[in-house]
C-alpha cells in the first residue's frame, strides 16, 4: 500500500498517537515534520477538552437543543424507539409468562394487606368520628359553669318497652340519681339508678320523665314528657301563647335538675289538649338517641341549680 501523498508527505500525518503508542514506522518521519509527536498529541487532547469546556460553559441550559442535537436525535430516535419496543415486548413476555411463578402467593399477600388496610381505615374513621364527638362534648363542657363527667353509652333498655340506656360511669365518679345528662346536641335525660361504675339514664322520650321547659322565642313554659321515638309532647302551654312550629324548646331550669337554656328540640305541631284548657306541642328532640354514643353528666347537687335565673320575665 502506498502511503505517499501528492505533496510528498505521508497519509499517516493526519493521524496522531498517544505517547508510547505504536505507530507504523513509515509514518514516523511525517509526524515529526512540524512538531514533536508528544507535544502535538498533548495539544490535541488539551484542545478537545478545552473545546468541551467552552461548549459546556457557553451553552444555553434553557434552549431546546441546537441543530446538531436535533439532527442527532432525529437519527437516533427511530433506532431508540425500535430498541425500546423490543425491550417492552421482551419484558411483557417475561412478565406475562415467566414471572407469573409466585403471583398467586403475591396476590394472596396483597389481599391480606388490603384487608388489613381496610380494617385500619375503618378503625381510623371510627376514631375520627369519636374524636369529633368528644370535641363537641368538650366544647359543651367548657360552656357549662358546673362540673361534669363524660360517659360512654354501654347498653340499652333490657326489654325495650321503656326508653333507657346505660353509661359506664357511676357513683364512683360522683354520679347520683336525678342528675342531668346532656349531649352536644341537647338534653338526653336524667340519671335513674347508679352503681359504682354504671348508671341507668331515663331518656326525655320516656313517658316517665317530665322536664320543665320553655319555648325559646316566646319564653312560654310547659312540661315536656316522652311520647314516642325521638318525639315528646310539651304540655300545659298557655292558650294565648304564640308558639309556632319550628320554635326551639329549651330547659327552663326550674325543675332543679336541668340547667336553664339547654336545647331540647323543635316544635313540630301545635294543638289544643283534650280538655281544651291548654295548648300542647309535639316536639322532635335535638338528640338522635339511636346514634348517641357519649354523653355528659352534669354533676350538680339535686335541686342545686339556682332557679331564680330561670324566672325572668318575658322579653
Amino acid at each position, binding site marked *: 500500500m502506498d502511503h505517499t501523498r501528492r505533496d510528498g508527505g505521508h497519509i499517516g500525518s493526519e493521524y496522531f498517537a498517544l505517547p508510547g503508542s505504536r505507530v507504523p514506522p513509515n509514518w514516523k518521519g511525517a509526524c515529526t515534520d512540524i512538531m514533536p509527536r508528544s507535544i502535538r498529541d498533548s495539544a490535541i487532547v488539551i484542545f478537545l477538552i478545552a473545546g468541551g469546556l467552552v461548549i459546556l460553559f457557553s451553552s444555553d441550559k434553557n434552549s431546546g437543543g441546537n441543530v446538531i442535537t436535533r439532527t442527532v436525535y432525529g437519527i437516533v430516535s427511530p433506532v431508540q424507539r425500535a430498541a425500546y419496543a423490543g425491550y417492552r415486548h421482551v419484558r411483557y413476555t417475561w412478565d406475562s409468562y415467566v414471572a407469573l411463578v409466585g403471583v398467586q402467593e403475591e396476590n394472596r399477600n396483597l389481599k391480606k394487606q388490603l384487608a388489613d388496610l381496610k380494617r385500619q381505615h375503618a378503625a381510623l374513621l371510627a376514631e375520627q368520628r369519636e374524636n369529633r364527638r368528644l370535641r363537641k362534648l368538650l366544647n359543651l363542657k367548657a360552656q357549662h359553669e358546673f362540673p361534669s363527667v363524660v360517659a360512654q*353509652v354501654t*347498653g*340499652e333498655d*333490657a326489654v325495650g318497652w*321503656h326508653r*333507657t340506656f346505660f353509661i359506664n360511669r357511676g357513683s364512683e365518679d360522683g354520679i347520683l340519681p336525678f342528675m342531668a345528662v346532656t349531649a352536644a346536641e341537647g338534653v338526653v335525660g336524667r340519671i335513674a339508678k347508679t352503681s359504682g361504675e354504671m348508671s341507668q339514664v331515663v331518656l326525655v322520650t320516656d313517658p*316517665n320523665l317530665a322536664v320543665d321547659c320553655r319555648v325559646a322565642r316566646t319564653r312560654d313554659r310547659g312540661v315536656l314528657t316522652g*311520647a*314516642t321515638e325521638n318525639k315528646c309532647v310539651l304540655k300545659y302551654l298557655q292558650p294565648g301563647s304564640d308558639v309556632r312550629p319550628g320554635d326551639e324548646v329549651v330547659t327552663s331550669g326550674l325543675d332543679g335538675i336541668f340547667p336553664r337554656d339547654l336545647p331540647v328540640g323543635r316544635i313540630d305541631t301545635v294543638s289544643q289538649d283534650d280538655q281544651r284548657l291548654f295548648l300542647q306541642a309535639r316536639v322532635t328532640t335535638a338528640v338522635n338517641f*339511636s346514634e348517641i354514643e357519649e354523653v355528659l353528666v352534669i354533676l350538680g347537687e339535686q335541686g342545686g341549680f339556682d332557679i331564680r335565673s330561670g324566672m325572668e320575665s318575658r322579653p
Partner: protein
Amino acid sequence: MREGVFLVALALTVCLVQISPAGSAVPMAYKPDLMLVAVIWASLRTRLETGMAFAFGGGMLMDMFSGSPAGLFVVIYCITFVVCAALNTTLSLDQPSVRMIAASMAAMASGAVILVTTWFSGPIDGGFLILFRMTGKSIITGIACLIAFPVLNRAMGAFSRVIGASQ
C-alpha cells in the same frame, strides 16, 4: 341444683344479650323479649320450683336493667311461667307454631301490662303507634321463640352431658 346452675347462667346470659346494643339486630323498641322466651322454655323443660325461681330471678334482672318499676317483670314472668306450664298439660305447647303463638301472646300481654302501669304515672301520647309497636314486638318475640327453643334445648343437652343429669 345442676338445673338451677344452668338457669342462673341462662338468666345472666340473656340479660347481657338484652342490654347489649349489638345483641339485637332490630331497633330497641322492637327487640324481642328473650327473657320471656327463656321463661316459656323453662315452663316446658324444668321443674316448677326451679322454673319459678328462674322466672322470679329473670324478672328481677329485667326490672333492674329496664325503666320499669321494680317487681313488674317479676310478676309478669311468674304469671307467664304458671300459665304456660298449666297450658302445657292440656295443649302441646312444644309444637313450634303453638310455641310461637304462646310467646307472641305472652309478649302482647306483658306489653299491655306495662302500658297500663305507665299510664298510671301519666297519660301516654302515642296512640296507634304504641299498638303498632306492641304488635311488632310480640311477633318478633314469637319468631325469636322459634329460634331460641332449639338452641336452648341443645345447650341444656350439652350442659347435662358435661355436668351430669339434673335428677
